């Protein structure tokens, strides 16, 4: 019998806010242990939570971007369980009335090759709710220490329907979801900083069966490659069990990305009873139409929508758009430059090759690079290249020079300074060409006899005379003109 896997993901995304979910303490990563705390974060006697409206705005934005239905009332519940990283031993969360319901994430499945766009699909969402993050345990040999810096950070839980069929699809889902979150400014989704964490519910069933198999929850898929490897590993494990006639036990398993193995944390019987009830310290908050409209007006274009527009509006190929659209700033930079340019494709190429290479160097921030080479300068540079003022072979060096210049310099100025202006239009070029033709009668004879490639015999001497700074295209044109005259 053939089996298929059914996967649903629960993704935790830290919401990018200045202060914590229910207190005024700042959110930050890497601060000295237990410095980002106050009576509320530590759960001291008498401390009370006060909701961070910016976090609520961010989740509403996420919901609107993903096409969710936004709840008319934001209601808070307590999820009760004891764990040392939980300061109050309950987590303020949303149980029966999540802020967002429904919606979907558009994903792109792997294409036949890296340069070819894959199939797109919509993965339906069950819900998105907001809650507070817990602290972090650092286990030593004989003791465990708790750092509450992370505790109270606004945390979104995004739950997908069990609509994914493979580890690759799960990976595509996370990639697409992350792109939306980053694009909306909702989260930086840096997995190394724990800003995006993933658990997966996995089951297998006979192919085509309408019934779901017994699910196993796989926890701690905390890097994007762990997600892929962990899910693939769990599917293999379950298939091995069912194909040998065994039965899957409903349980929670912990995946260890280092060893690639998983082990059981608890079975269904050992599941917590979270004793959810409405948090009496927090009043429900009505989310009215005006509020939703205000947030809707702040929602940017989704990455895949932008990609489709870049195809149609600028005629960009997949290879360029797939690089551009994952980065909102870069896309906007491209678009500003493209609007000033007669050749958006050339602009796209320049951005993806030159700008991105400079960004990849990691020495300067996006904002700094943009300051030194604003979109208008990029458009100008591309125009100069098209005019033949700049040799294609010299573009990389010239671009690097522009990025390095501080204070910034103009494109023309940089071209002159670098001595890169091509001598292609001057009298020099004509003189060099005449000399080259005169110096190679054999090639001239061959050319006249109809062997077109003989023209190459003149080009070497021209280039040498121009010290490499002549545009091959201009040289070719000049030679042909003179050869034609020589008839």
């Amino acid at each position, binding site marked *: 019998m053939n089996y298929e896997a059914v996967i649903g993901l629960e993704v935790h995304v830290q919401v990018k806010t200045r202060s914590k979910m229910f207190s005024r303490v700042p959110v930050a990563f890497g601060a000295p242990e237990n410095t980002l705390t106050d*009576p509320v974060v*530590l*759960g*001291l*006697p*008498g*401390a*009370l*939570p*006060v*909701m961070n409206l910016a976090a609520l705005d961010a989740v509403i934005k996420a919901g609107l971007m993903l096409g969710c239905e936004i709840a008319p009332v934001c209601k808070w519940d*307590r999820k*009760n369980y*004891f*764990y*040392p990283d939980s*300061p*109050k*031993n*309950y987590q303020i969360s949303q149980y029966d009335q999540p802020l967002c319901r429904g919606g979907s994430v558009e994903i792109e499945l792997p294409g036949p090759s890296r340069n070819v766009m894959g199939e797109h699909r919509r993965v339906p969402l069950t819900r998105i709710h907001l809650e507070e993050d817990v602290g972090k345990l650092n286990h030593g040999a004989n003791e*465990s220490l*708790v750092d509450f810096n992370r505790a109270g950070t606004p945390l979104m839980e995004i739950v997908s329907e069990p609509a994914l069929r493979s580890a690759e699809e799960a990976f595509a889902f996370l990639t697409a979801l992350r792109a939306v979150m980053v694009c909306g400014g909702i989260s930086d989704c840096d997995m190394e900083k724990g800003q995006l964490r993933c658990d997966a519910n996995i089951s297998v069933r006979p192919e085509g069966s309408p019934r779901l198999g017994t699910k196993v929850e796989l926890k701690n898929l905390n890097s994007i490659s762990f997600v892929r490897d962990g899910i693939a590993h769990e599917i293999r494990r379950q298939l091995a069990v069912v194909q040998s006639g065994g039965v899957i036990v409903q349980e929670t398993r912990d995946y260890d990305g280092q060893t690639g193995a998983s082990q059981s944390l608890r079975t269904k019987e050992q599941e917590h*009873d979270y*004793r*959810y*009830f409405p948090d*009496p*310290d*927090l*009043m429900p908050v009505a989310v009215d139409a005006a509020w939703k409209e205000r947030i809707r007006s702040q929602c940017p274009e989704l990455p895949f929508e932008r990609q489709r527009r870049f195809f149609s509006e600028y005629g960009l190929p997949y290879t360029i758009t797939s690089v551009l659209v994952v980065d909102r700033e870069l896309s906007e930079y491209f678009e500003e430059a493209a609007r000033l340019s007669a050749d958006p494709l050339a602009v796209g190429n320049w951005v993806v090759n030159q700008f991105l290479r400079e960004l990849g160097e990691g020495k300067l921030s996006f904002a700094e690079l943009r300051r030194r080479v604003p979109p208008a300068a990029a458009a100008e540079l591309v125009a100069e290249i098209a005019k033949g003022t700049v040799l294609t072979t010299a573009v990389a060096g010239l671009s690097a020079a522009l990025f390095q210049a501080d204070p910034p310099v103009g494109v023309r100025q940089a071209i002159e300074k670098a001595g890169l202006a091509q001598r292609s239009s001057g009298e020099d070029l004509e003189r060099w060409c005449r000399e080259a033709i005169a110096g190679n009668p054999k090639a001239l004879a061959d050319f006249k006899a109809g062997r077109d490639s003989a023209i190459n015999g003149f080009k070497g001497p021209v280039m040498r005379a121009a010290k490499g700074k002549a545009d091959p295209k201009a040289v070719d044109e000049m030679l042909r003109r003179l050869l034609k005259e020589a008839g």
Partner: protein
Amino acid sequence: MASALFHRPAAELSALLDSGAISSVELMQAVIDRVKAVDPSVRAFNSSDPDSALAQARASDERRAAGRRLGPLDGLPIGLKDVIAVEGQPLTASSKMLANFISPYDSTVASRLKAAGAICWGRLNLDEFAMGSSTENSAFGPTRNPWDLSRVPGGSSGGSAAAVAAGEAVAALGSDTGGSIRQPAALCGVVGLKPTYGLVSRYGLAAFASSLDQIGPLTRTVEDAALVLGAIAGHDPRDSTSVRSEVPDYAGLVRRRGGPWRLGIPKEYFGQGLDPEVAAAVENAIAHYRSQGCEIREVSLPHTRYGIGVYYIIAAAECSSNLARYDGVRYGHRSREATDAVDLYFRSRAEGFGAEVKRRVILGTYVLSSGYYDAFYLRAQKVRTLIRRDFLEAYREVDALVTPTSPIPAFRLGEKSADPLAMYLCDIYTIGVNLAGLPGISLPCGFTASGLPIGLQLIGQPFKEAELLSIARSYEQAHDWHTRVPSL
């Protein structure tokens, strides 16, 4: 008559300070001496810091001398129930769990008292985590009733009520979840006000039941209650349940003559279990109001009989969650025997909490458990709505309700300790006010033949504390119960 300085009402002392007849240091010293003299037998205080109090008194005298008086409470020692946080002072909740805990921050009420110049004076005993009606559930031993040291002061704010009655504090703050300000006020012969839910910030009050808890004053007179309420009331951005409303000049309004009012007598509050001497005193009070031209009308609060049941489900549910934070991990009692994290929880909580707290935590955990939530917690919330509706319905006809505060006067230590249900019935007339979120006040309305104080409860409309205080004061001015003091 109450001639000793430490027995005089806050308003009178404030005037004496303003006139220069006494100094705050003088007053503070008199109170410190009084505590030294009587607290070994009353035991209202868990702790106090006389040096700091005297330093604050000196600072207050300097302010007055410089003409920079912060308000009528400037220089007056006000005691705080040991469940309200004051920076740098112990916050024990009368529990072994927090026996060594020092609060690193001020509650909103403490910072408001300080801003008004008041001296935060001592940590007053209570039933552990405010759970009880006799202050016998304190891990540090019971407080005794100043009127009869063999009897309880009521609870859970028993230390606050006893301290005010015994002259150990000019006024005190308590907290009231099901009657914890009003019932001890009644049993100790002082005034106790539970404000409308949301009027006074709960920030810094170690929570028992969040949807019911409210901080309020215990004082010698109704006017004093108005003075203290004026200092602590008002919206607090740190408490999401605190209501945005203007704070009227309670003390100014209460001095004005009001009425006559339409007063309701809820028939369900005069049934079985009401002590005849208490009933007689309350009837006399009602007769007084009638004689003053008030319209007296019988009203019905038909869901009253569900009050105790609803209360013990909701309060226990919230307490089971609120007290989960006391786990020995970050602060508080940590068992020395623990072998791992789970064991640490079990042992620290088993050792740190007393029997009544455990009883309620277990009850609350049960009613919130999967499969029981709908039958208990959800249903209790629905009945709670009906109870509130009963009151609001009655207020279509009357301005306020008149009832006994406690069905019985102060009982003997140990008399009810063995029977939790008998103890729970002490709150039968006070619980509805918390469930409905209304303001309620208890004031002295007589004494039993054996000399025990009796309390009259007035229940007002939401956020109409000024009117409630006026109604109370009109009775108080015509009687002298509040001027009597216990002989200690």
